[in-house]
């Protein structure tokens, strides 16, 4: 094959370079000052072992502890006081002998002297503060919501214990051997925070109009810290930011609340005849019948409104049991409406699942939004999440409206959005409610069941959950607008300079929303849609979920499983997206065009003549054209060169061409006539993250096609690559990442030929709103 003259010379150079490859050349290659984006993560990830394998699955020697609780708790509504006692059975499944246990006392965060409070930094006070705000801050500073531990005992004998901020060490009277268990008791009380003064993941909301409270109670009892094969004791203090790390266990909980309260809790109610009316029990049974097409009210609006004024004396005890959960939360109020919809956890037609009571509890202030959307959103979440992970294993799934904006616990979550007082609500509030319910119910899967360490790795539950949340949202309606999902939604954050990698401890994150929610979910979305494809990704993601269901995964287990189950080397992706703060900015920096030359001198010279004729006449040449030239005045000055056309085919050229043809076989002669076009497309990596090169080829004939070049094209040079586009049709334009799949932060350099820079958002707005006015002008116009 013969190329045009300029191409031939380049080919010759390439050939020379190839011939010169030698060990010395490889040595020089190693010294190149370029980041190795495809370096494997083996020096970063922990060495695989019998507990956690190199495949990302739990190993044959995997173990985890188990903690069972029997709790009796009393809610004093008037004083907002919780008093409880618990009997704990700690099962030591580890191969280690333990001499002490660590117990978490998160409520100690509600103390002015707590580590979390002392290290929270200063607010902006330079603009001062309103009297109302000042009053709240004074009340907050004076509030003590910490645990008052009144007893740590074994068989009524005191156990030595030491409290360090939000952690309590309980010294064991004798070392706890592997395979044995230890039983002990803790008694405590504390005052629940009023969320209008002290916010948190738990608290109580007061309704002045009817003198009632809604209690939403979390980390309300001393809970065992995790002891595992990775960290030993996970006893990092609770600073208020990073959430929880907890062991699985069985819970038997008796909640004594005011007699007219409705209590919602993790687990299954064991004594409905003691706490529910006959009508309520009948309604519940009806709600749990198969085939219902919506929720059934257990407590109606009229009943809840009437209940608000009761304020009965006396108490009732609600008995709940929850097996294989990592935590227990509950809510209590006489304001609650309550609905229930019994749904099948698996394929209903095949009867391969079990019945789940999807339920919601809310005050009248939540109407009409909550009766319309909440339990539907719960059921929708279970359906979608179960499809992408595993069948929902628990018997209940509950959404409660109260003071907490959005928090998750096993089988129960707290969600804040409410309509206006007049019952109307904006579209934003509507989707805010649906979105937060999907998110918090979705947390049942991550981290309540796939039980990652929230205290250390926020992204492992928030990022994965936000990713599946998006999958559920797009199945809600046609125009659902998710917070995150499209790669373009994360580009501003990724371009910012002051950020930390996703693989940063939760309490050290900068901009946790973007870092732990938005960026990892976007990364997973890009993996699914662009890099791995839906089939490979969905299998691998579900495999990770199944492997680590009811276990404690670590980041490496996720990274390894996604590769193990897909046969896609993703170390480059984890390295770039999770271990660096680089962003994506690929730029189309050069395109060279080559075509096959037939070597026919008429054609070659004709093309050159065409090019010559396309050269614009210079201004000076045009102005000089009318001069009388000397050789016009003296014709004897003319010679051969005045009539010579260097692009005219010569006899010698024609002869050489015929000689060339004579030496070729038929197939080679056919190739010389091929209309094949060759475009060498140069792409530079300006942002640091290597990504697939997605090219839209737009042809002169109006057609177009996509070329998807895998990210591995960057494996030998992560800064600049060239890729070859071979086509029979001349190209008119090339666009890089035309469908915004890669989170490319600067789209202005994604075009060949280059195109003018995109106008800024500000410019676009101004163009659309040329007749703008400021508020003063508006006022004067009135």
């Amino acid at each position, binding site marked *: 094959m013969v190329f045009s003259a300029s191409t031939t010379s380049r080919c010759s150079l390439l050939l020379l370079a190839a011939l010169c490859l030698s060990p010395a050349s490889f040595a020089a290659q190693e010294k190149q000052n370029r980041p190795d984006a495809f370096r494997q993560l083996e020096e970063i990830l922990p060495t695989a072992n019998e507990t956690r394998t190199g495949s990302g699955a739990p190993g044959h020697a995997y173990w985890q502890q188990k903690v069972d609780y029997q709790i009796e708790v009393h809610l004093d509504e008037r004083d907002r006081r919780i008093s409880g006692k618990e009997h704990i059975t700690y099962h030591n499944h580890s191969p280690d002998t333990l001499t002490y246990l660590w117990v978490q006392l998160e409520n100690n*965060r509600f103390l*002015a002297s707590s580590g979390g409070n002392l290290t*929270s*930094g*200063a*607010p*902006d*006070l*330079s*603009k*001062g*503060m*309103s*009297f109302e705000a*000042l009053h709240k*801050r*004074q009340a*907050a*500073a004076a*509030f003590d919501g910490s645990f008052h531990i009144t007893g740590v005992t074994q068989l009524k004998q005191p156990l030595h214990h030491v409290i360090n901020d939000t952690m309590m060490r309980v010294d064991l009277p004798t070392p706890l051997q592997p395979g044995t268990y230890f039983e002990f008791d803790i008694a405590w009380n504390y005052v629940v925070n009023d969320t209008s003064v*002290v*916010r*948190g*993941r738990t608290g109580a909301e007061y309704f002045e109009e009817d003198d009632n409270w809604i209690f939403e109670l979390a980390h309300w009892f001393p809970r065992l810290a995790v002891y595992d094969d990775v960290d030993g004791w996970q006893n990092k203090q609770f600073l*208020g*930011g990073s*959430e929880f790390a907890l062991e699985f266990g069985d819970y038997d909980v008796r909640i004594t609340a005011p007699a007219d309260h409705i209590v919602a809790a993790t687990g299954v109610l064991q004594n409905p005849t003691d706490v529910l009316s006959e009508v309520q029990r009948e309604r519940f049974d009806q709600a749990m019948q198969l085939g219902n097409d919506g929720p059934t009210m257990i407590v109606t609006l009229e009943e809840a409104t009437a209940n608000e004024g009761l304020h009965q004396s006396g108490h009732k005890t609600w008995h709940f049991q929850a097996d294989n959960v990592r935590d227990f939360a509950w809510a209590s109020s006489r304001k609650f409406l309550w609905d229930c919809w019994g749904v099948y956890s698996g394929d209903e037609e095949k009867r391969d699942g079990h019945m789940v009571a999807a339920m919601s509890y809310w005050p009248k202030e939540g109407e009409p939004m909550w009766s319309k959307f909440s339990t539907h959103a719960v059921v929708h979440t279970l359906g979608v999440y179960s499809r992408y992970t595993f069948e929902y294993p628990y018997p209940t799934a509950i959404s409660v409206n109260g003071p*907490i*904006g*959005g*928090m998750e616990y096993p089988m129960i979550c707290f969600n804040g959005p409410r309509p206006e007082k007049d019952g109307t609500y*904006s*579209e*934003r509030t509507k*989707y*805010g409610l649906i979105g937060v319910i999907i*998110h918090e119910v979705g947390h049942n899967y991550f981290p309540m069941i796939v039980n990652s360490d929230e205290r250390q790795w926020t992204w492992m539950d928030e990022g994965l959950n936000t990713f599946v949340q998006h999958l559920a949202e797009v199945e809600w309606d046609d125009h659902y*607008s*998710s917070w995150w999902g499209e790669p373009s939604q994360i580009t*501003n*954050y990724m*371009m*910012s*300079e*002051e*950020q930390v990698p996703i693989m940063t401890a939760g309490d050290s994150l*900068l*901009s*946790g*929303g*973007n870092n*732990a929610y938005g960026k990892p979910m976007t990364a997973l979305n890009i993996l699914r849609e662009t890099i791995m494809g839906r089939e490979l990704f969905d299998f691998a993601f579900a495999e990770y979920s199944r492997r680590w269901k009811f276990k404690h995964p670590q980041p490496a287990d996720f990274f390894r499983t996604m590769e193990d189950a897909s046969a896609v080397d993703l170390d480059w992706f984890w390295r770039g997206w999770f271990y660096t703060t680089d962003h994506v900015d690929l730029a189309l920096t050069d395109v060279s065009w080559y075509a096959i030359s037939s070597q026919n001198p008429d054609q070659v010279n004709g093309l050159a003549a065409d090019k010559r004729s396309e050269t614009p006449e210079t201004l000076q040449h045009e102005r000089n054209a009318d001069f009388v030239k000397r050789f016009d005045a003296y014709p004897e000055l003319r010679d051969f060169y005045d009539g010579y056309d260097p692009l005219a085919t010569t006899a010698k050229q024609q002869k050489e061409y015929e000689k060339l043809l004579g030496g070729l076989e038929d197939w080679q002669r056919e190739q010389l006539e091929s209309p094949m076009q060759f475009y060498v497309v140069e792409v530079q990596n300006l942002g640091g993250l290597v990504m697939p090169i997605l090219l839209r080829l737009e042809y002169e004939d109006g057609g177009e096609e996509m070329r998807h070049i895998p990210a591995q094209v960057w494996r030998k040079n992560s800064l600049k690559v060239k890729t070859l586009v071979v086509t029979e049709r001349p190209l008119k334009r090339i666009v890089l990442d035309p469908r915004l799949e890669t989170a490319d932060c600067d789209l*202005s350099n994604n075009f060949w030929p280059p195109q003018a*820079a995109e106008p*800024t*958002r*500000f410019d676009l707005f101004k163009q659309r*709103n040329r007749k703008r006015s*400021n*508020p003063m002008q508006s006022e004067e116009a009135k």
Partner: protein
Amino acid sequence: MKSLLLPLLLLLCSWHSVATTQLEMEVDQESGALEIALHLSPNDLETCLTQWNGRAIRLDKEEDIDGLITEYLQAHLSVSGADEKPASFTWVGKEIELRDAWVYFELDVRGSLEGKQLHNKLLNALHHDYVSTVSLRLPKKKMRSLRFDRATTAQNLLKD
């Protein structure tokens, strides 16, 4: 707004908040104004306006919402030079969508950012983890990125 100072704060907040603002800035070479496009969550905007005004503010119901936003922005975001006099503020407009709010305004920096400081306290009373990111477009396609949070509320617009 009457105000007092207080040295102690105790607040706990959920992670479950977007808690960011993004500002795109560029000096318009013709007018000399710093053009600013502020992106934030409508919920956050509504909440901070409610806090600032001491009454419930709804973006879609308030009659003079542009005026309230202007007042809030002027109190929480400014550019000043050595004389510490804040650059004058011009309202340009806003776009409120379901998940995103964009607010457009100009600060008269007289064509130069040299020696000028950006004071940014937008929404930082809203959340302990609140972060505001500024992307400043400079000539020759250069970009400068600044990050503000509760501890960092003033920075030079150009390199220190």
